């Protein structure tokens, strides 16, 4: 097996035994990128020279006998909505076409400290708004399993590059499913941590009360390792939680005996493809066979999630995106005779249609006369959804659902109907509204396209998620399959 095909934990073992070097690993991954990237288009920027320089530094560090962390020498891809000092960061938008951040996102600092090697910035739906990565202003990323289909979104670039072995670990961000859904479409592991578990400082904000950064990886073990490295309290983020980070590797136990698992009834009904439904029920059966107590659970408020989300998230986004005005950084329209013209034209030229649509929707929801009916009402629906989950978790240790209603759809298939695109997030959105963690792991294939199983836990129960996910993974072979590129 080539180095680029391995997982972080496998590479770490090799580095530890001095069977390979950081430079060899980086060159292997870069070599892979040079072969497949023209097909996949996962990256916005590839930091070839910097990665090799860093790799050499890491090798010196290792040679001097210093201790390795699980991330030392591991190539990491970073979603291009996370600030990297001195490295172009665009959020896949024209409005940031030339933006060089003066600082690193906290999680980027953390992995740099741990000796990881940033390999490049990955493509996303513009400002993380989308479920297919087709909203990128620069390029369309293809799903490595079928280049005519989407990789999912908004972290499509990161998910695709893991599936294609173009990086060993990748950062994603998730506001309504943007880590989990692409993980599901690309047959990789994607985790959205509990809100506040991972610092948001340096993540270009979409919806502040919903955004979280999380790992996209080849297997559950790597997700645990990566989460270990990125989680933790950050004094620069007032919403980050001051709770110690457990060693998530300790949760990688192949045992679900007597765990109570609920299968969400409403997420296996109308709107979910029958083949996806079949995969999920088979997964539930397997867990039952392995000793878990699996039952159906009804969560009647979940169906209001999409509506509440598209009012809340767009409202917050409309405000977060006001700063893109051509004054301080990024694109400034050439037609700027006066400040108003500058604002109107810069934002007209700089934002794509989906971003404009959400800014309009969000501004409307907050505007005079509509605040109570839309924004405030949506905040109340959020409480009801949270309560529904609290009730479920009083009975169950974890909940199951499909991550997405279908496998990856064709490129261009849903771009004409924004509403239908929004509705496909029905399973992932309620998790963000409640602030709880969820993981998507591969659980089957439909027409050779991956299907994802979503496991949901209560706040700060990532250990439970890893345990259930690891057990399932160790008793199946899905994670060993790779796309033919």
């Amino acid at each position, binding site marked *: 097996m080539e180095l680029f095909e391995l997982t972080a934990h496998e590479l770490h073992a090799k580095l530890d035994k001095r069977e390979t070097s950081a430079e060899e690993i980086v060159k292997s991954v870069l070599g892979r990128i040079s072969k497949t990237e023209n097909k996949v288009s996962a990256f916005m920027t590839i930091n070839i020279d910097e990665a090799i320089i860093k790799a050499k530094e890491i090798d010196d560090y290792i040679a001097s006998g210093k201790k390795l962390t699980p991330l030392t020498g591991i190539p990491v891809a970073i979603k291009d*909505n*996370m*600030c990297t000092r001195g490295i172009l*960061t665009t*959020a896949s938008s024209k409005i*940031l076409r030339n*933006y060089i*951040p*003066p*600082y690193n*996102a906290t999680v980027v600092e953390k992995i740099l400290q741990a000796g990881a090697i940033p390999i490049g910035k990955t493509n996303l739906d513009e400002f993380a708004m989308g479920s297919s990565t087709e909203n990128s202003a620069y390029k369309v990323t293809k799903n490595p399993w079928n280049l005519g289909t989407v990789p999912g979104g908004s972290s499509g670039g990161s998910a695709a590059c893991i599936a294609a072995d173009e990086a060993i670990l990748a950062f994603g961000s998730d506001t309504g499913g943007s880590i989990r859904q692409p993980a599901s479409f690309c047959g990789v592991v994607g985790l959205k941590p509990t809100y506040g578990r991972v610092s*948001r*400082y*340096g*993540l*270009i*904000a979409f*919806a*502040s*009360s919903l955004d979280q950064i999380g790992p996209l990886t080849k297997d559950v073990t790597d997700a645990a390792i990566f989460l270990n490295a990125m989680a933790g309290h950050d*004094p*620069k*983020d*007032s*919403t980050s939680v001051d709770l110690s980070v457990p060693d998530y590797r300790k949760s990688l136990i192949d045992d679900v005996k007597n765990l109570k698992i609920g299968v969400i009834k409403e997420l296996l009904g109308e709107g979910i493809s029958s083949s996806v439904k079949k995969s999920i029920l088979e997964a539930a059966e397997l867990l039952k066979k392995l000793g878990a107590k699996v039952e159906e659970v009804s969560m009647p408020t979940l169906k209001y999630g999409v509506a509440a989300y598209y009012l809340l998230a767009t*409202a*917050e986004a409309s*405000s977060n995106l*006001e*700063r*893109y*005005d051509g*004054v*301080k*950084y990024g694109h400034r329209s050439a037609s700027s005779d006066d*400040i*108003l013209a500058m*604002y109107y034209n810069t934002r007209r030229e700089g934002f794509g249609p989906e971003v404009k649509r959400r800014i309009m929707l969000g*501004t409307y929801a*907050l*505007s*005079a006369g509509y*605040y109570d009916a839309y*924004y405030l009402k949506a905040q109340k629906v959020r409480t009801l959804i949270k309560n529904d989950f609290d009730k479920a978790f009083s009975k169950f240790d974890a909940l199951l659902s499909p991550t997405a209603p279908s496998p990856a759809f064709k490129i261009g298939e849903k771009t004409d109907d924004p509403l239908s695109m929004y509705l496909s997030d029905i399973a992932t959105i309620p998790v963000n509204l409640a602030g709880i963690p969820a993981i998507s792991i591969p659980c089957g294939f439909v027409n050779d396209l991956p299907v994802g199983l979503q496991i949901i836990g209560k706040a700060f129960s990532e250990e439970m998620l890893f345990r259930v996910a690891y057990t399932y993974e160790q008793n199946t072979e899905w994670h060993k399959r790779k796309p033919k590129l």
Partner: protein
Amino acid sequence: MKYEAVIGLEIHAQLLTESKIFCGCSTKFGAAPNTNICPVCTGQPGVLPVLNKKVVEFAIKTGLALKGNIAKHSVFARKNYFYPDLPKNYQISMYELPLVVGGHMDVTVDGKAKHIGITRVHLEEDAGKLVHKGAAGLKGSTGSLVDFNRTGVPLMEIVTEPDIRSPEEAKVFMQELRNLLVYLEVCDGNMEEGSLRCDANVSVRPIGQKELGTKTEVKNMNSFKSVQKALEAEIKRQTDMLESGERIVQETRLFDDTINMTTPMRSKEEAHDYRYFPEPDLVPVEPDRKWVEEIAKTITELPGAKRSRLMKDHGLPELDATVLTDDKALADFFEECLKLYKNAKNLSNWMIGDLTAYMKAKKIGIKEINITPAQFIEMLNLIDKGTISRNSAKAVLVKMLDGGKSVNDVVAESGATQISDEGELLNIISNVMSNNTKSVSDYKIGKEQALFFLMGQVMKATKGRANPEAVKKLLIEALKK
């Protein structure tokens, strides 16, 4: 028809913290443009605010001093509007749930006590500074330059109830509020420099009418005096309009101190829709009662109370007490002196008179003078003893202040000791009388002024060092002969 004015004030005070409200940048004034900045206060993509604890402490302290209620649960909110001095194009402020609700301040206007209610006190961040190119101000400019040093400096907004009824009341209120904030050491209260700003909501109604008239917002009042003048102008304008049957338009007007009038602010945009919503990047502030109590303990005597005490305990007239307490540092110096000296009125006279004149001339404050309260009292004691005359003491004080010297050193150097010795004085008087025979005869025929002339000559001859009372007594005796 007689009209009465109804005025409410909206005050913004820059808080005296070391760092900004949501980031660690320095708040120090006068730095080169865009040097006290960081990713947070320049609104870079991906940044987040973190609240400065001292800012909250200062607001709670102010709220307590204003007898307001410290909220159990207060929330920051975003106020959205586009302007180049606002990097995020929203200001983090507070809306429905401010930090302090209610309160009041009692002021004295024209000898009458007036109770002015406070609606609320809340926190927000300041915007940046704009420098306009191609013109003196915004009008006619060809472009502008933005300096973000000031963005994120903490502001405390104080809103009064519409309880103010005259421009003078407004001015007095502003002065009292300023003193309060300076005493609390939360703001340096400088309207001219912009660390204390004031906007007013003004309306007029017939006396006796309960409903409020249409109000206008008046801005650009940059000193206590201009607050009064602006309100006078606006009240007159509104009254004139109502009297001629015209309707008041609700609008924002700017005070122009070159013509002493308010002019409408032309704005292309419609009335602002700020789309307030709770700031998702910050969590609620819920000050626990223990913390509030600790803050309450740090509040020392407030200006109003100090003024009353000086009047009551030391018999000072209101004017003296007011001047002394207006400046906290001056009041502190005064009280230090009082520990060593009993005659409060004499002390007050010297401080308000010669000492203040000196400080004004040198453009310094009491904290910068070169002598201590003890040294000041030493001088007063020498005057009381008669060792130096009141007159010569004036020059002595200046020398003390100039050189940081003690009174004894100055007197020794300049030989300013007062001459009270009768023998010495009689000699000089005898000389003066023989040199001014006409005045002597004038006095003897009843011209009283001649005495003062002769006294003057004695003082001149002694270079002001003669003890005036002694001179007068001896001269009169000598002239009788």
